[in-house]
């Protein structure tokens, strides 16, 4: 693979093979004085990830990118799911930034090489197989991502190139979160890096807000909260549903903003503005049918609307 494309794909098989050829262990990555830049870059990435920014250095080469990725992932794995989710979000956003001017041919090469996608071009669009599309699109909110609103026929979806990039970035995110190594201890220099990140994290995540009555919330809301707790990125609709619901059951704007601090792309100013906007407009929580349409309903729960009572109605699911 060409070096400039390897830069995009530090998690690919090609990247792994390069690491294997060099024969470097995590010990080497932690101590080798020649790899100081890779450690620095890993640290910056993690810091940016926690802060909800993206770190793209002015100069990178393939080895630097690959090593820094391996180090960052090991440290994130050591620190737990929350930091991993942040790193995944960071890598997905980084992918969007550095592929912005990539040619169609290069993008397709990347899709084949890194994600084994069967892809072809049709006019200005990229054509992908429905199952591949679905694995990425379910994690993206918005009507245009639902296949009913997409050009789909005979098992293929046609995507404008920017949507195709967005789809790939979701696969990047998923890739960071799969085959996570079991890291129970780190070499000394990396352990120090981990404790710096962890300190930063503590400052970032504020005290826990009061969460009365959560156990009575409907499953869709609980699921959104659980995803937020794990630091997963939420589609816009999920944020909207959660905010309207929590306002309805009496949470304050501050409490809700605090909850969103776990969000990988948290920006206090924007979050405050959005929560306040929803509160001042007095929007109602979405109906079940709407939640279903947004792909946010985990299953039948016997409740008609989110606003109707906080208790389950008993009912048999099957006759």
């Amino acid at each position, binding site marked *: 693979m060409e070096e400039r494309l390897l830069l995009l794909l530090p998690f690919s098989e090609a990247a792994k093979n390069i690491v294997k050829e060099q024969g470097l262990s995590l010990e080497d990555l932690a101590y080798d004085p020649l790899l100081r830049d890779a450690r620095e870059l890993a640290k910056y990435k993690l810091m940016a990830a926690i802060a909800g920014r993206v770190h793209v250095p002015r100069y990178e080469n393939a080895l630097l990118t690959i090593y820094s990725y391996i180090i960052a992932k090991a440290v994130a794995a050591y620190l737990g799911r929350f930091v991993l989710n942040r790193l995944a979000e960071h890598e997905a956003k980084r992918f969007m930034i550095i592929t912005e001017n990539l040619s169609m041919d290069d993008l397709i090469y990347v899709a084949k090489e890194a994600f084994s996608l069967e892809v072809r071009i049709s006019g200005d669009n990229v054509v992908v*197989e*429905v*199952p591949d599309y*679905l*694995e990425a*699109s*379910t*994690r993206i909110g918005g*009507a*245009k991502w*639902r*296949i*009913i*609103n*997409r*050009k*789909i*026929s*005979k*098992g*293929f979806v046609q995507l404008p190139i920017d949507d195709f990039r967005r789809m790939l970035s979701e696969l990047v995110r998923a890739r960071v979160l799969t085959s996570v190594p079991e890291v129970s201890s780190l070499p000394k220099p990396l352990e120090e890096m981990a404790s710096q990140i962890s300190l930063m994290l503590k400052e970032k995540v504020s005290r826990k807000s009061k969460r009365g009555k959560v156990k009575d919330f409907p499953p869709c809301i609980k699921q959104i909260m659980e995803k937020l707790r794990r630091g997963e990125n939420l589609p816009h609709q999920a944020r909207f549903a959660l905010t309207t619901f929590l306002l309805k059951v009496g949470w304050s704007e501050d409490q809700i903003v605090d909850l969103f601090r776990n969000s990988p792309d948290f920006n206090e100013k924007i979050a405050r503005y959005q929560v306040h906007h929803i509160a001042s407009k007095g929007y109602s929580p979405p109906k079940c*049918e709407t939640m*279903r*349409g*947004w*792909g946010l309903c985990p*299953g*039948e729960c016997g409740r008609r609307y989110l606003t109707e009572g906080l208790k389950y109605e008993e009912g048999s699911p099957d*006759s």
Partner: protein
Amino acid sequence: MKRDLLIVRSFFRKYYEELGDTIYVRNPSEREFMFMTFDGKVRRHFTFKDAKSLREGLVREAPRHAYYSVSKYRDPSAPMEEKGPISSDLLFDIDATELEGCGQEDIWVCERCGAYGHGDKPKKCPKCGGQDVKLLHWLDEKCMIAAKNELKKLINLLREDLGIKEEDMILSYTGNRGFHLRVVSEKYSSLSKDARRELALYVIGSGADVRLWFRKIGALYVFDPPSGQAKRAMQNLFTIKASENLKRKVSDMIKGKPTRLSSRELSLISSLISKSLQEVSPKIDWMVTMDTSRFTRIPNSLHGKTGFRALLLTPSDIDEFDPFRASPIPITEEITLKVRYPVPKFRIHRNLFGPYSEGERLSLPANAAIFLILSGRAEIL
């Protein structure tokens, strides 16, 4: 076990002894099986190493219901968390119970005093106040035609929109009021739960944003249907009640002509399309599709509420398929019955039976008799 059920069970066993070689399951050693016995017990977390031992198992146990898992597992007999899923067929479920106009012959019955009636099942028996009120379904020919229609819509959607080949679809009649369709292609078998849900929502026509189906060129609108679902919803608009003017515009738009629409017309057309979409969408139970821990009946096994065979079908069979002709248990020796609750007219093969009223005594061939016993409407004398 009640005497009636013991007798029915012996007929089931006889069926498995004589016609068991029609029982076939793909990759049995990777599937989990579930049997429900005639005394109401559920046995699961077991497997069969091949088709032969599956057939022997069915003869040995003669279960009332016999199922196999949608998923394949590394260790199908292990507890759920340790099974190790390999892949899962993509399952669609069509249940006639949910269709409009179905269930008209269903009755509720009181087990205590024998009272019965049509309509919704009361919480308590209106006659004696007893709590033991059951719903007795009735397999209705009309409903099965409606269900077949939904199945055809589903097959068409899977083929046209999703490119799924017919040889990758395993269709089966449930033996009662529904159909199952399993997609077994490799690409679809490895879909995640989330992706299955997304797909199921597509099938039922959820998530549509009709505004995205139109392109605006200056003051004109062009209907540019993205998906097959969108196209079918629009085409179905021909059947709507609307002004001639609006109908003409709809027809122009279907032909792809840029058309002038007032904002009122646009929103009217959008809401009509949404309704139309519900009509053209196959009525599947979307929750079933997203659940990879489901089971369906073992092909050609017997359904314990009808005695009908859960027959394997091919898409070209559907039009001709007549459950009352093809599915009844192929046993015809006479059984003498007493009718417990009214029996509507019904048909087994070409023979018409009924209607019968409560208390009537009669002698029927086993296929019809078992149907009535398992439907809860008659008992063996």
